[in-house]
C-alpha cells in the first residue's frame, strides 16, 4: 500500500470506514441472532427473565473474548504465511 498517493490513501480510507461500519452492523445482527437463538426459548413472559439476561450477557462477553483470541491467532498465522510462501510456487 506504500505506492498509493495521498488522495488515493484518503479515498481508500473512506471506503474502509464505510466497509467497517457495514462489517460492524453485520457482526451486531449476527450476534443478536446467535445470542437470541442460544438463550431465549421460553415465551411465557413478555420481557427477558433473569436467566435469559444473564445468558445474553455471557454470550456477548464470550463472543468478544473468543473473537479476540481468534483475531490474535489469525494475525500470527497471517504473519507466518507471509514469511514462508507455500510449496508449489
Amino acid at each position, binding site marked *: *500500500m506504500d*505506492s498509493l498517493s495521498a488522495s488515493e490513501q484518503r479515498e481508500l480510507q473512506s471506503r474502509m470506514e464505510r466497509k467497517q461500519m457495514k462489517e460492524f452492523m453485520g457482526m451486531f445482527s449476527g450476534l443478536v441472532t446467535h445470542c437470541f437463538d442460544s438463550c431465549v426459548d421460553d415465551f411465557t413472559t413478555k420481557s427477558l427473565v433473569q436467566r435469559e439476561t444473564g445468558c445474553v450477557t455471557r454470550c456477548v462477553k*464470550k463472543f468478544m473474548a*473468543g473473537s479476540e483470541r*481468534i483475531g490474535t*491467532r489469525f494475525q500470527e498465522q497471517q504473519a507466518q504465511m507471509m514469511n514462508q510462501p507455500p510449496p508449489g510456487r
Partner: protein
Amino acid sequence: MSGMFGFGRPQPSSSEKIAAAEQEMDLITDMFNKLQQACMKKCIPKTYLEGEVNKGEGVCIDRCTAKFFDVQMKVSELLQAEAAAKGGAQGGGFGIGGM
C-alpha cells in the same frame, strides 16, 4: 509492504490500485469471518454458563485456527495441482495460499 498479494501489474491506474487494496482487504475480512464462524461454532458451546472463554475452549480455538489454515493450504495446494495437471502452463491462478 507492497500489497500482500503482489499484484504486479505495471503502472496500474489510481482506481485499479484502490480496487486492489480493497479487494485484498475484503479477502482478509472474509477469511477472518469464515474462520471465526467455524471455530466459534466448533469450540464454544451454546449453553453460556460462563462469560469467559475457559481453558479448554481457548485451546480448542487455537487448534481450530491452526487447522483451518492447514485446510486452506491443503485445498489451495490440491486445486493448484489439479489445475497444473489439467491446464499445464497456466495453472496457479487462484493463489489464496500464495500470500
